[in-house]
Protein backbone atom coordinates (compact mmCIF):
# COMPACT_ATOMS: atom_id res chain seq x y z
CA UNK A 1 0.00 0.00 0.00
CA UNK A 2 1.35 3.33 -0.95
CA UNK A 3 0.12 5.15 2.10
CA UNK A 4 1.20 2.38 4.37
CA UNK A 5 4.77 2.72 3.30
CA UNK A 6 4.38 6.46 3.66
CA UNK A 7 3.33 5.86 7.22
CA UNK A 8 6.50 3.91 7.82
CA UNK A 9 8.48 6.71 6.26
CA UNK A 10 6.73 9.28 8.38
CA UNK A 11 7.34 7.30 11.51
CA UNK A 12 10.96 6.74 10.62
CA UNK A 13 11.57 10.25 9.43
CA UNK A 14 10.16 11.53 12.64
CA UNK A 15 12.97 9.91 14.49
CA UNK A 16 15.10 12.61 12.94
CA UNK A 17 13.07 15.39 14.46
CA UNK A 18 15.22 17.45 16.76
CA UNK A 19 14.00 16.99 20.31
CA UNK A 20 11.50 19.67 21.08
CA UNK A 21 9.84 19.79 17.69
CA UNK A 22 7.57 16.94 18.52
CA UNK A 23 8.13 16.79 22.23
CA UNK A 24 7.45 13.08 22.04
CA UNK A 25 9.55 10.03 22.60
CA UNK A 26 10.68 9.02 19.07
CA UNK A 27 10.32 5.33 19.87
CA UNK A 28 6.68 5.84 20.77
CA UNK A 29 6.07 7.91 17.65
CA UNK A 30 7.58 5.14 15.54
CA UNK A 31 5.47 2.50 17.28
CA UNK A 32 2.44 4.72 16.73
CA UNK A 33 3.24 5.07 13.02
CA UNK A 34 3.45 1.32 12.64
CA UNK A 35 0.28 0.72 14.61
CA UNK A 36 -1.54 3.37 12.59
CA UNK A 37 -0.42 1.78 9.31
CA UNK A 38 -1.56 -1.64 10.51
CA UNK A 39 -4.96 -0.55 11.75
CA UNK A 40 -6.22 2.72 10.36
CA UNK A 41 -6.70 1.88 6.69
CA UNK A 42 -8.61 -1.36 6.98
CA UNK A 43 -12.17 -0.06 6.97
CA UNK A 44 -11.80 3.25 5.18
CA UNK A 45 -9.26 5.42 3.39
CA UNK A 46 -6.61 6.81 5.68
CA UNK A 47 -7.72 10.12 7.15
CA UNK A 48 -5.11 12.84 6.88
CA UNK A 49 -3.34 13.41 10.21
CA UNK A 50 -3.41 17.12 9.32
CA UNK A 51 -7.19 17.26 9.46
CA UNK A 52 -7.38 17.35 13.27
CA UNK A 53 -5.74 19.07 16.21
CA UNK A 54 -4.31 17.23 19.22
CA UNK A 55 -7.45 17.19 21.35
CA UNK A 56 -9.64 16.02 18.44
CA UNK A 57 -7.29 13.15 17.71
CA UNK A 58 -7.32 12.02 21.32
CA UNK A 59 -11.11 11.74 21.19
CA UNK A 60 -11.40 10.30 17.68
CA UNK A 61 -8.82 7.59 18.33
CA UNK A 62 -10.96 6.57 21.34
CA UNK A 63 -13.97 6.39 19.01
CA UNK A 64 -11.99 4.26 16.54
CA UNK A 65 -10.56 2.10 19.31
CA UNK A 66 -14.10 0.97 20.10
CA UNK A 67 -14.93 0.42 16.39
CA UNK A 68 -11.78 -1.51 15.63
CA UNK A 69 -11.24 -3.44 18.90
CA UNK A 70 -7.80 -1.97 19.63
CA UNK A 71 -5.90 -2.23 22.90
CA UNK A 72 -5.36 0.81 25.06
CA UNK A 73 -1.65 0.74 24.26
CA UNK A 74 -2.29 0.66 20.50
CA UNK A 75 -4.66 3.62 20.82
CA UNK A 76 -2.19 5.58 22.96
CA UNK A 77 0.66 5.07 20.48
CA UNK A 78 -1.55 6.00 17.50
CA UNK A 79 -2.63 9.15 19.32
CA UNK A 80 0.98 10.11 20.03
CA UNK A 81 1.87 9.55 16.38
CA UNK A 82 -1.07 11.60 15.07
CA UNK A 83 -0.46 14.40 17.56
CA UNK A 84 3.12 14.60 16.32
CA UNK A 85 2.53 14.40 12.59
CA UNK A 86 -0.46 16.74 12.51
CA UNK A 87 1.73 19.84 12.29
CA UNK A 88 3.78 21.11 9.38
CA UNK A 89 7.10 20.40 11.09
CA UNK A 90 6.17 16.73 11.18
CA UNK A 91 5.61 16.66 7.42
CA UNK A 92 8.58 18.80 6.71
CA UNK A 93 10.78 15.93 7.72
CA UNK A 94 9.31 13.80 4.99
CA UNK A 95 10.31 16.20 2.25
CA UNK A 96 13.73 17.09 3.59
CA UNK A 97 16.21 14.59 2.14
CA UNK A 98 18.97 15.44 4.61
CA UNK A 99 16.98 14.64 7.67
CA UNK A 100 16.83 10.85 7.37
CA UNK A 101 20.59 10.69 7.01
CA UNK A 102 20.92 11.75 10.61
CA UNK A 103 18.33 9.25 11.65
CA UNK A 104 19.43 7.44 14.77
CA UNK A 105 19.06 3.67 14.72
CA UNK A 106 15.44 3.05 13.95
CA UNK A 107 14.45 0.00 15.96
CA UNK A 108 10.92 -0.04 14.60
CA UNK A 109 11.95 0.22 10.99
CA UNK A 110 11.59 -2.84 8.86
CA UNK A 111 12.26 -1.02 5.65
CA UNK A 112 13.10 2.62 6.17
CA UNK A 113 14.22 3.45 2.58
CA UNK A 114 15.45 6.86 3.67
CA UNK A 115 16.68 7.74 0.17
CA UNK A 116 13.16 7.54 -1.23
CA UNK A 117 11.86 10.10 1.21
CA UNK A 118 13.76 12.82 -0.55
CA UNK A 119 12.25 12.05 -3.92
CA UNK A 120 8.69 12.15 -2.71
CA UNK A 121 6.47 15.14 -3.24
CA UNK A 122 4.78 16.56 -0.18
CA UNK A 123 1.82 14.38 0.65
CA UNK A 124 -1.34 14.98 2.50
CA UNK A 125 -0.73 11.85 4.50
CA UNK A 126 -3.88 10.23 3.25
CA UNK A 127 -2.63 8.67 0.07
CA UNK A 128 -4.08 11.45 -2.05
Amino acid sequence: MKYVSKAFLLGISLLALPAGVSGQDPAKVAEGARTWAQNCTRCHNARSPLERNDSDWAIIVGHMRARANLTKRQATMITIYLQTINRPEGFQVLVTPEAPEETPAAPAAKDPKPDKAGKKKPVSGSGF
Partner: protein
Amino acid sequence: MSRINKKVTAAVAGGLLLSTLATAAAAQDGTPLTRANMVLTGYGSATYQAALNNEFANNFTASISPIFLYNMGGDVLFEAELEFGLSGEATTTTLEYAQIDYLGFERVIITAGKFMIPFGIFGDRLHPSWINKLPTPPLLFGHGHGGVAEGSLLPLLSDAGVMARFAQPLQSGWSLNLSLYATQGPTLVDETAGGEDGHGDEHGAGEDGPASIGAPAVGFGIAFDDNNKNKMIGGRLGLVKGPNFEVNFSAFNAMYDEGNYQSYNAHAVSLQWRLRSVEFKGEYVHLMQEFQSDQTFPTLITSGYYVQLARRIGRWEPVVRWSQLLDGTIDSEAVLPGKEILALGLDYWIDATIPVKLAYEVRLDADDSLLLQWAFGF
Protein backbone atom coordinates in the same frame (compact mmCIF):
# COMPACT_ATOMS: atom_id res chain seq x y z
CA MET B 1 -39.85 5.05 15.64
CA SER B 2 -41.10 4.21 19.10
CA ARG B 3 -42.03 6.86 21.64
CA ILE B 4 -38.88 6.32 23.68
CA ASN B 5 -36.67 6.27 20.64
CA LYS B 6 -38.14 9.66 19.78
CA LYS B 7 -37.42 10.91 23.26
CA VAL B 8 -33.80 9.82 23.06
CA THR B 9 -33.48 11.44 19.63
CA ALA B 10 -34.97 14.64 20.98
CA ALA B 11 -32.63 14.57 23.97
CA VAL B 12 -29.58 14.16 21.74
CA ALA B 13 -30.79 16.86 19.37
CA GLY B 14 -31.45 19.09 22.38
CA GLY B 15 -27.97 18.41 23.69
CA LEU B 16 -26.47 19.35 20.33
CA LEU B 17 -28.48 22.56 20.29
CA LEU B 18 -27.50 23.46 23.84
CA SER B 19 -23.85 22.88 23.12
CA THR B 20 -24.14 25.09 20.02
CA LEU B 21 -25.77 27.82 22.07
CA ALA B 22 -23.12 27.45 24.74
CA THR B 23 -20.31 27.77 22.22
CA ALA B 24 -22.02 30.72 20.53
CA ALA B 25 -22.21 32.45 23.90
CA ALA B 26 -18.58 31.58 24.56
CA ALA B 27 -17.61 33.09 21.23
CA GLN B 28 -19.08 36.39 22.35
CA ASP B 29 -16.88 36.57 25.37
CA GLY B 30 -13.90 35.86 23.20
CA THR B 31 -13.25 32.31 24.38
CA PRO B 32 -12.49 29.76 21.66
CA LEU B 33 -15.36 28.19 19.76
CA THR B 34 -14.32 24.61 20.11
CA ARG B 35 -14.07 22.75 23.35
CA ALA B 36 -11.17 20.42 23.83
CA ASN B 37 -13.34 17.54 25.03
CA MET B 38 -15.85 17.55 22.17
CA VAL B 39 -15.78 16.72 18.46
CA LEU B 40 -18.56 17.24 15.94
CA THR B 41 -17.96 15.06 12.92
CA GLY B 42 -20.02 12.87 10.59
CA TYR B 43 -20.92 12.45 6.97
CA GLY B 44 -23.53 13.25 4.38
CA SER B 45 -24.54 12.63 0.82
CA ALA B 46 -26.72 13.79 -2.04
CA THR B 47 -28.01 11.16 -4.45
CA TYR B 48 -29.72 11.26 -7.80
CA GLN B 49 -31.51 8.13 -8.92
CA ALA B 50 -33.19 7.36 -12.20
CA ALA B 51 -35.19 4.21 -12.84
CA LEU B 52 -34.70 3.14 -16.43
CA ASN B 53 -36.54 0.76 -18.76
CA ASN B 54 -40.32 1.06 -18.64
CA GLU B 55 -41.32 4.37 -17.25
CA PHE B 56 -38.58 6.82 -16.60
CA ALA B 57 -38.73 8.11 -13.05
CA ASN B 58 -36.09 10.02 -11.20
CA ASN B 59 -35.54 11.67 -7.89
CA PHE B 60 -33.03 13.34 -5.61
CA THR B 61 -32.41 12.36 -2.03
CA ALA B 62 -30.04 13.71 0.55
CA SER B 63 -28.99 12.81 4.03
CA ILE B 64 -26.70 14.09 6.72
CA SER B 65 -25.48 12.18 9.74
CA PRO B 66 -23.83 14.30 12.40
CA ILE B 67 -21.69 12.41 14.92
CA PHE B 68 -21.15 13.91 18.30
CA LEU B 69 -18.19 12.73 20.41
CA TYR B 70 -17.80 13.91 23.95
CA ASN B 71 -15.04 12.92 26.30
CA MET B 72 -16.75 12.78 29.66
CA GLY B 73 -13.45 12.75 31.52
CA GLY B 74 -11.15 9.95 32.46
CA ASP B 75 -11.62 7.12 30.04
CA VAL B 76 -15.31 7.64 29.35
CA LEU B 77 -16.45 8.56 25.84
CA PHE B 78 -19.98 9.44 24.81
CA GLU B 79 -20.73 8.99 21.11
CA ALA B 80 -23.96 9.58 19.24
CA GLU B 81 -25.00 9.66 15.61
CA LEU B 82 -28.20 11.07 14.22
CA GLU B 83 -29.33 10.66 10.69
CA PHE B 84 -31.46 13.24 8.94
CA GLY B 85 -32.75 12.06 5.63
CA LEU B 86 -35.46 12.57 3.07
CA SER B 87 -38.14 10.02 2.41
CA GLY B 88 -40.75 11.17 -0.05
CA GLU B 89 -41.95 14.52 1.22
CA ALA B 90 -40.99 13.89 4.82
CA THR B 91 -37.73 14.49 6.65
CA THR B 92 -36.73 11.49 8.70
CA THR B 93 -34.68 11.49 11.86
CA THR B 94 -33.05 8.34 13.16
CA LEU B 95 -30.92 7.82 16.20
CA GLU B 96 -28.31 5.47 14.82
CA TYR B 97 -26.49 5.17 18.12
CA ALA B 98 -26.05 6.94 21.46
CA GLN B 99 -23.60 5.07 23.62
CA ILE B 100 -21.12 5.42 26.44
CA ASP B 101 -17.78 3.62 26.06
CA TYR B 102 -15.48 2.86 28.94
CA LEU B 103 -11.94 2.84 27.56
CA GLY B 104 -9.99 2.37 30.77
CA PHE B 105 -9.09 -1.30 30.39
CA GLU B 106 -6.14 -2.48 28.34
CA ARG B 107 -7.85 -5.10 26.20
CA VAL B 108 -11.59 -4.69 26.80
CA ILE B 109 -13.95 -1.86 25.92
CA ILE B 110 -17.29 -1.76 27.70
CA THR B 111 -20.23 -0.07 25.97
CA ALA B 112 -23.74 0.72 27.16
CA GLY B 113 -26.58 2.50 25.37
CA LYS B 114 -27.88 2.16 21.86
CA PHE B 115 -25.14 0.94 19.54
CA MET B 116 -24.63 -0.53 16.08
CA ILE B 117 -24.77 -4.30 16.45
CA PRO B 118 -21.57 -6.02 15.37
CA PHE B 119 -23.32 -8.52 13.11
CA GLY B 120 -21.47 -8.88 9.83
CA ILE B 121 -19.36 -5.91 8.84
CA PHE B 122 -21.58 -3.72 6.68
CA GLY B 123 -23.68 -2.31 9.51
CA ASP B 124 -21.16 -1.11 12.02
CA ARG B 125 -18.31 -0.19 9.74
CA LEU B 126 -19.07 0.03 6.03
CA HIS B 127 -22.43 1.75 5.74
CA PRO B 128 -21.35 5.43 6.08
CA SER B 129 -21.67 6.93 2.63
CA TRP B 130 -18.00 8.02 2.45
CA ILE B 131 -16.94 4.43 3.25
CA ASN B 132 -19.43 2.39 1.19
CA LYS B 133 -18.08 2.33 -2.37
CA LEU B 134 -21.53 2.14 -3.95
CA PRO B 135 -24.48 4.50 -3.46
CA THR B 136 -26.69 1.65 -2.20
CA PRO B 137 -26.28 -0.98 0.49
CA PRO B 138 -25.99 -4.64 -0.57
CA LEU B 139 -29.31 -6.52 -0.58
CA LEU B 140 -28.60 -8.04 2.82
CA PHE B 141 -28.92 -4.85 4.85
CA GLY B 142 -31.66 -2.22 4.92
CA HIS B 143 -31.67 1.51 4.50
CA GLY B 144 -28.62 3.06 2.94
CA HIS B 145 -27.45 6.55 3.63
CA GLY B 146 -28.47 8.68 0.77
CA GLY B 147 -29.09 5.40 -1.01
CA VAL B 148 -32.37 3.64 -1.51
CA ALA B 149 -33.83 1.12 0.89
CA GLU B 150 -35.04 -1.96 -0.87
CA GLY B 151 -36.60 -5.07 0.59
CA SER B 152 -33.58 -6.53 2.33
CA LEU B 153 -32.78 -9.41 4.62
CA LEU B 154 -32.09 -7.26 7.69
CA PRO B 155 -32.16 -3.59 8.59
CA LEU B 156 -28.93 -1.92 9.67
CA LEU B 157 -28.91 -3.31 13.19
CA SER B 158 -28.75 -0.90 16.08
CA ASP B 159 -30.17 -1.75 19.49
CA ALA B 160 -30.04 -0.82 23.17
CA GLY B 161 -28.08 -2.90 25.64
CA VAL B 162 -24.53 -3.61 26.77
CA MET B 163 -21.48 -4.76 24.86
CA ALA B 164 -17.91 -5.83 25.61
CA ARG B 165 -15.27 -5.66 22.88
CA PHE B 166 -12.02 -7.54 23.31
CA ALA B 167 -8.73 -7.13 21.47
CA GLN B 168 -5.95 -9.71 21.39
CA PRO B 169 -2.87 -8.90 19.30
CA LEU B 170 -1.04 -12.04 18.14
CA GLN B 171 2.31 -12.63 16.42
CA SER B 172 3.47 -10.97 13.19
CA GLY B 173 0.63 -8.59 12.49
CA TRP B 174 -2.22 -10.97 13.27
CA SER B 175 -4.86 -10.15 15.87
CA LEU B 176 -8.09 -11.54 17.20
CA ASN B 177 -11.09 -9.52 18.22
CA LEU B 178 -14.30 -10.52 19.89
CA SER B 179 -17.41 -8.43 20.51
CA LEU B 180 -20.19 -9.79 22.74
CA TYR B 181 -23.51 -8.10 23.44
CA ALA B 182 -26.89 -8.44 25.12
CA THR B 183 -29.62 -6.12 23.87
CA GLN B 184 -33.38 -5.68 23.99
CA GLY B 185 -33.72 -7.71 20.85
CA PRO B 186 -36.28 -7.98 18.11
CA THR B 187 -39.99 -7.58 18.53
CA LEU B 188 -43.17 -8.29 16.63
CA VAL B 189 -44.18 -5.49 14.35
CA ASP B 190 -47.77 -4.49 13.92
CA GLU B 191 -47.90 -4.24 10.19
CA THR B 192 -51.19 -2.47 10.08
CA ALA B 193 -49.67 0.48 11.98
CA GLY B 194 -47.06 1.21 9.31
CA GLY B 195 -43.89 3.20 10.01
CA GLU B 196 -45.05 6.72 10.75
CA ASP B 197 -41.85 8.21 9.42
CA GLY B 198 -41.43 5.76 6.61
CA HIS B 199 -38.18 4.71 8.17
CA GLY B 200 -39.14 1.66 10.15
CA ASP B 201 -36.44 -0.90 10.61
CA GLU B 202 -38.78 -3.78 10.14
CA HIS B 203 -37.74 -6.93 8.48
CA GLY B 204 -40.55 -8.87 6.99
CA ALA B 205 -43.00 -6.21 5.99
CA GLY B 206 -43.87 -5.98 2.34
CA GLU B 207 -45.26 -8.18 -0.37
CA ASP B 208 -42.38 -10.59 -0.67
CA GLY B 209 -41.51 -10.61 3.02
CA PRO B 210 -42.11 -13.41 5.52
CA ALA B 211 -45.46 -11.82 6.34
CA SER B 212 -46.75 -12.94 2.96
CA ILE B 213 -46.54 -16.56 4.11
CA GLY B 214 -47.87 -16.00 7.62
CA ALA B 215 -44.57 -15.54 9.45
CA PRO B 216 -44.84 -12.41 11.58
CA ALA B 217 -42.78 -9.35 10.71
CA VAL B 218 -39.89 -8.80 13.11
CA GLY B 219 -38.49 -5.39 13.99
CA PHE B 220 -35.04 -4.62 15.38
CA GLY B 221 -33.94 -1.73 17.54
CA ILE B 222 -37.46 -0.46 18.04
CA ALA B 223 -38.30 -2.30 21.25
CA PHE B 224 -37.28 0.27 23.79
CA ASP B 225 -40.04 -0.95 26.00
CA ASP B 226 -38.80 -4.54 25.80
CA ASN B 227 -41.69 -6.83 24.97
CA ASN B 228 -40.33 -9.88 26.77
CA LYS B 229 -37.77 -10.92 29.36
CA ASN B 230 -35.52 -12.48 26.80
CA LYS B 231 -32.51 -10.53 25.57
CA MET B 232 -30.86 -10.80 22.21
CA ILE B 233 -27.45 -12.36 22.83
CA GLY B 234 -24.83 -12.32 20.16
CA GLY B 235 -21.24 -11.89 19.19
CA ARG B 236 -18.71 -11.47 16.44
CA LEU B 237 -15.27 -13.04 16.29
CA GLY B 238 -12.71 -11.57 13.93
CA LEU B 239 -9.28 -12.62 12.79
CA VAL B 240 -7.26 -9.78 11.33
CA LYS B 241 -3.94 -9.53 9.53
CA GLY B 242 -2.60 -5.99 9.26
CA PRO B 243 -4.66 -3.56 7.21
CA ASN B 244 -5.45 -6.00 4.42
CA PHE B 245 -7.20 -9.10 5.68
CA GLU B 246 -10.06 -9.81 8.03
CA VAL B 247 -12.49 -12.67 8.44
CA ASN B 248 -15.45 -12.49 10.83
CA PHE B 249 -18.03 -14.90 12.17
CA SER B 250 -21.16 -13.44 13.74
CA ALA B 251 -24.23 -14.89 15.38
CA PHE B 252 -27.17 -13.85 17.53
CA ASN B 253 -30.14 -15.51 19.09
CA ALA B 254 -33.35 -14.01 20.46
CA MET B 255 -37.01 -14.65 21.17
CA TYR B 256 -39.17 -12.09 19.46
CA ASP B 257 -42.68 -12.60 20.75
CA GLU B 258 -44.25 -11.73 24.07
CA GLY B 259 -44.76 -15.36 24.98
CA ASN B 260 -41.03 -16.05 24.58
CA TYR B 261 -41.38 -19.13 22.45
CA GLN B 262 -40.67 -18.05 18.88
CA SER B 263 -36.95 -17.84 18.23
CA TYR B 264 -34.85 -15.89 15.79
CA ASN B 265 -31.35 -17.07 14.96
CA ALA B 266 -28.87 -15.34 12.72
CA HIS B 267 -25.40 -16.24 11.45
CA ALA B 268 -22.99 -14.42 9.19
CA VAL B 269 -19.54 -14.85 7.70
CA SER B 270 -17.69 -11.82 6.36
CA LEU B 271 -14.42 -11.58 4.51
CA GLN B 272 -12.38 -8.58 3.53
CA TRP B 273 -9.14 -8.91 1.61
CA ARG B 274 -6.94 -6.42 -0.17
CA LEU B 275 -4.12 -7.27 -2.50
CA ARG B 276 -2.28 -4.18 -3.68
CA SER B 277 -4.96 -1.97 -5.24
CA VAL B 278 -7.64 -4.65 -5.47
CA GLU B 279 -10.09 -5.06 -2.63
CA PHE B 280 -12.53 -7.90 -2.09
CA LYS B 281 -15.43 -7.85 0.32
CA GLY B 282 -18.01 -10.54 0.82
CA GLU B 283 -20.64 -11.48 3.37
CA TYR B 284 -23.08 -14.32 3.78
CA VAL B 285 -26.08 -14.10 6.13
CA HIS B 286 -28.33 -16.96 7.22
CA LEU B 287 -31.52 -16.34 9.25
CA MET B 288 -33.83 -18.81 10.94
CA GLN B 289 -37.19 -17.57 12.15
CA GLU B 290 -39.42 -19.93 14.06
CA PHE B 291 -43.10 -19.05 14.08
CA GLN B 292 -46.42 -20.47 15.09
CA SER B 293 -48.74 -21.65 12.41
CA ASP B 294 -51.82 -23.31 13.89
CA GLN B 295 -50.39 -25.96 16.21
CA THR B 296 -47.02 -26.29 14.47
CA PHE B 297 -43.79 -24.31 14.67
CA PRO B 298 -42.22 -24.21 11.23
CA THR B 299 -38.87 -22.49 10.70
CA LEU B 300 -38.49 -20.05 7.88
CA ILE B 301 -34.94 -19.91 6.53
CA THR B 302 -33.85 -16.89 4.57
CA SER B 303 -30.33 -16.18 3.43
CA GLY B 304 -28.28 -14.15 1.06
CA TYR B 305 -24.81 -12.94 0.22
CA TYR B 306 -22.88 -10.31 -1.64
CA VAL B 307 -19.45 -10.19 -3.15
CA GLN B 308 -17.76 -6.94 -4.09
CA LEU B 309 -14.56 -6.21 -5.98
CA ALA B 310 -13.01 -2.80 -6.29
CA ARG B 311 -9.79 -1.63 -7.83
CA ARG B 312 -8.16 1.66 -7.07
CA ILE B 313 -6.51 3.32 -10.09
CA GLY B 314 -5.23 6.74 -9.07
CA ARG B 315 -8.29 8.70 -8.04
CA TRP B 316 -10.63 6.34 -9.87
CA GLU B 317 -12.10 3.19 -8.45
CA PRO B 318 -14.29 0.85 -10.49
CA VAL B 319 -16.50 -1.37 -8.29
CA VAL B 320 -18.61 -4.46 -9.03
CA ARG B 321 -20.99 -5.96 -6.52
CA TRP B 322 -23.29 -8.94 -6.89
CA SER B 323 -25.97 -9.28 -4.16
CA GLN B 324 -28.36 -12.16 -4.02
CA LEU B 325 -31.16 -13.18 -1.69
CA LEU B 326 -31.76 -16.90 -1.99
CA ASP B 327 -35.27 -18.34 -1.97
CA GLY B 328 -36.78 -18.43 1.53
CA THR B 329 -37.54 -22.01 2.56
CA ILE B 330 -39.58 -23.99 5.07
CA ASP B 331 -38.55 -27.65 5.33
CA SER B 332 -36.37 -27.14 2.22
CA GLU B 333 -39.36 -26.07 0.20
CA ALA B 334 -39.12 -22.65 -1.45
CA VAL B 335 -41.80 -20.35 -0.09
CA LEU B 336 -40.38 -16.90 -0.80
CA PRO B 337 -38.79 -15.73 -4.03
CA GLY B 338 -35.13 -14.73 -4.04
CA LYS B 339 -33.77 -11.72 -5.83
CA GLU B 340 -30.54 -10.36 -7.13
CA ILE B 341 -28.89 -7.11 -8.09
CA LEU B 342 -25.72 -6.54 -10.03
CA ALA B 343 -24.23 -3.13 -9.28
CA LEU B 344 -21.53 -1.65 -11.50
CA GLY B 345 -19.93 1.48 -10.17
CA LEU B 346 -17.23 3.98 -10.89
CA ASP B 347 -16.01 6.21 -8.08
CA TYR B 348 -13.89 9.31 -8.33
CA TRP B 349 -12.18 10.26 -5.08
CA ILE B 350 -11.91 14.03 -4.80
CA ASP B 351 -10.30 13.48 -1.44
CA ALA B 352 -9.91 10.57 0.99
CA THR B 353 -13.40 11.22 2.32
CA ILE B 354 -15.15 12.69 -0.73
CA PRO B 355 -16.18 10.18 -3.37
CA VAL B 356 -18.40 10.91 -6.34
CA LYS B 357 -20.03 7.59 -7.21
CA LEU B 358 -21.74 6.67 -10.43
CA ALA B 359 -23.51 3.33 -10.43
CA TYR B 360 -25.70 1.27 -12.68
CA GLU B 361 -27.83 -1.41 -11.05
CA VAL B 362 -29.16 -4.32 -13.02
CA ARG B 363 -32.11 -6.08 -11.39
CA LEU B 364 -33.72 -9.21 -12.61
CA ASP B 365 -37.10 -8.53 -11.00
CA ALA B 366 -37.43 -4.77 -11.49
CA ASP B 367 -36.28 -1.85 -13.59
CA ASP B 368 -32.60 -1.06 -13.81
CA SER B 369 -31.48 2.12 -12.19
CA LEU B 370 -28.77 4.68 -12.56
CA LEU B 371 -27.43 6.43 -9.51
CA LEU B 372 -25.10 9.33 -8.94
CA GLN B 373 -24.03 10.09 -5.41
CA TRP B 374 -21.77 12.69 -3.93
CA ALA B 375 -20.72 11.74 -0.42
CA PHE B 376 -18.47 13.36 2.13
CA GLY B 377 -17.07 12.58 5.53
CA PHE B 378 -16.27 15.63 7.62
